[in-house]
């Protein structure tokens, strides 16, 4: 599977939190959604998605629950916790600062 862009760990967390802010989703749903929104820049494989999901759950920012898919199969759905909502807001602010700063640095060279 070709990697479309190198993903920083923090960035993936941010993307997942942002995706779940809209609605609870299961694993495949999250990956689809990120690929869709970033217009194919980021393609998330399960090898990075699952560790990220579990790390976020470990920190209490998202919570997983088993539910039914339309097909009738069971899947684990993840939802943002109140903690996670706060975290998302913070991460967004930080990201903007980093982006601006890095832009400045890049622009300055």
């Amino acid at each position: 599977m070709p990697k479309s862009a190198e993903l920083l760990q923090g960035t993936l967390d941010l993307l997942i939190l942002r995706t779940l802010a809209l609605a609870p989703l299961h694993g495949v749903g999250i990956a689809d959604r990120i690929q869709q929104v970033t217009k194919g820049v980021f393609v998330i494989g399960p090898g990075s998605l699952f560790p990220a999901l579990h790390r976020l759950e470990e920190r209490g920012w998202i919570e997983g629950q088993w539910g039914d898919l339309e097909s009738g199969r069971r899947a684990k759905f993840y939802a943002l916790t109140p903690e996670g909502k706060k975290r998302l807001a913070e991460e967004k602010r930080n990201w903007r600062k980093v982006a601006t700063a890095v832009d400045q640095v890049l622009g300055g060279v």
Partner: protein
Amino acid sequence: MSFIIRAKHLYHRWRDPDRADADLDAEVRSYFEEIVERHIARGLTPEEARRAARLQFEGPEQVKARVREARMANSLETAFSDARYALRTLRKNPGFAFVAVLVLALGIGAATAIFSIVNAVLLRPLPYRNPDRLVSISSTVLQGGRFVPARTVTLNEVEAWRRLNGSFESIGSFVFTAFPAVVGEQPTHLVAIGADRELLPTLGVEPALGRNFAGSTSLQDPSVIVSHKLWSQALHSDPAAIGRSILLDGSRCTIIGVLPADFQFPRSDVSYFPEDPDLLLPIANIADSWGRDSAQWFAIARLKPHVSLAQAEAELKAFTPRITKQPIKTRLSALDAETTSAVRTPLLILFGVSVVLLLIACTNIMNLLLARAPGRSGEIAIRASAGATRWRLIRQMLTESFCLTILGGILGLALGWSLTGLLVRAAPAHLPVSGRVNIDLSVFGFAFAICTATALFAGLLPAMRLALHPWSLLGSLGSRDFGGRAFTRFQHALTVTQIALGFALLATASLLTHSLLRLSSVNPGFQTEGVLGFEFSIPGFSGPLPPGTSLAKHRQLIQRMLEATRTVPGVQSAGFVTFLPPETRSGAFVSFFNVGQGAQGAGTRLFGNSQVASEDYFKTVGVPILRGRDFTSADNAEAPQVAIVSESFARRYFANVDPLGQRISPFDPRNPPSEIVGIAGDMHDRGLSVNPFATVYLPYRQSVRGYGSIALRTDLPPETLIPELRARVAQVDSTVPVTNFTTIQGRIHRTLDEPRFYALLAGACGLMAVLFVSLGLYGVVSYSVSRRTPEIGVRMALGASRPSILGRVLRQGLWMAVFGVAAGMALSLAASKILVNLLFQVKPNDPATLALAAALVLAVTLFASFIPARRASRVDPVVALRHE
């Protein structure tokens, strides 16, 4: 909050690891199935769809493993990766790492070594049963007509307390002494404790072999209990040694017991025998001849349960004067406090010094870490933006200071371990150590605790600074203007504190050294060079004379030994004296009675230190006979009794009358008097720090029993005479143990052991402190120079001269040094009281010493800021400005 959630997850997984795994398994499988389904929906056969999904999936097992890794991420694993990262960072700055680890190792090593002594002496409980219930009883002794506090009691008091008190389980009494003895074949000299049978049970110690004394305190009993050392060395650890007899002071005694190997006698008074005792003998054997009513005995009592020290003391105070009919004040002190009272203050001061040194080392590391912060702000900001939480960042930064401290700590512990060995060898012989000075669990714990404290103290602030505001640093990413004025001010305050502490340590060390120099330059009143001496004891010098000997025989023996000594080639003169100077246990205080027609009238009590001497003794040790005459060989038992008194004795008791011709009687006015025939110069015969005592010398032919020393003067190196002396003295009588060949110089050196030990330790700490302080200042000034390089470039471009740049930077360092020294001066003056008792003829605020310390600190700090200042003055403005 998230912490609780994390703990909850952790708990669930721990309680039911299978379920957590099954859950993950199901989740991964569901994901896989969905991808397969998608491929089928796109028109692949189920077989093809599965293969495509598998290709895309990178293996379910790997995925699961990575999830488990991610879960672990906040525990051990991160710690390791943090440590790896920290070590890598340190490897990239080997200079910084080297200096930091070295500073920490020195600080931790010094603190650990000194703590190991404090631990063994002050903290470890005494090696007895329930040592906290043991008290030492002390009384007052009649001295110069007044009752002054003493650490001793009379045996009659002990008897009365035993009968009447309700506070003690038991009271043991004892005294230090020494005897000539024959154990096996060899005549030796043994340090002995006269003890009653209650002493060992009071301490809670039982003989390892055999039994305790059985007799009462009034019956003579020819039994001894030997130390484990004597038993294993002279008796070859033979269990059958019980029942064997040894010759003690000419009398036959039976060994009835062996003390345990780890038994230590409470060293209640450092001025008696620093050596561990070789044996215990019943106190009754010497009680009568030494005087039951003279306050020279020690008493240790065990408090009854639920009786406090204060209650027991109140009780004793109430009834002791009633029994003794004398205004005696009895005091109780906890045995451990009593045994360590002499060394407590100096040891605590040294410990304080080492802790301050460690504190300086810590601030040094803190300063170095802070100075490195700007260089790392970019890295930290990137880590923060990559999702690292604050806690994570702080932890990462702390891991770095922990790595430094662990490295420093390991090195420091090794250093402390070897230092401890050195310290023990350098320590004064009578340090009241419980057990052995070693690195035990509590020293280890202490080292661990200070390492942790150091890492937190040195690392937390720089870590918080970086981690809490990573974003604020970003605006200035790459720029040198980091932190602003508040930060700089803090860093400077830290440096000033460091200089202040360093100055205080150096001042302490200088004061102790100054005091040592003062002490060693005291004129002792006797010649120190070319004088050698040795001790001997003739069996039967205490207690009843063994059959076949007499006092006359003793005196003849001494005369023959003196004559033998004089025949050794190289000996110019030789004389007999009870105790060679300087000797802390020199002589005994004796009351003399003025029986002449002195100004103070007949019958007046005169107190003097009593020594026995021979003709030529004064000449040999270079003490002048100021008036009258020396003893002669004619001053024998048949001749009229005579005495020589010291200058201070004469001045004190015969101020208005010519002392020559006055007559004094020892112990009792009815005893035959001695006429004063000479006045000898004063001498510091109890050590240089002790003022000369009023002393009475009696001629040995009229008053000695067989214990004493012979001093001899020679032009040759004194040590070269020892073999010949030994041989000739042995020819006189091979049963007389001759021991302790020492030069007077060596003896003086030994009395300075203790002040030298303290001065040496404090000095080492003081010098290290100055080194650390200059390193700290160097770091701060260098940092500031590197930060200001562009500014310096601009100044130079605008025409500032190199000297003016040099001056600017130097001034910055100088200001900190001046502030630091001023604060340190205030600190030393405030703390000066605790030093008073350790100083000899030096005031703790001695201006010259403090000025010297200040000058040294200023010079060193100036030098430390000179190096970066010179670098600043050599900045090339073109290069500096291009950097901007």
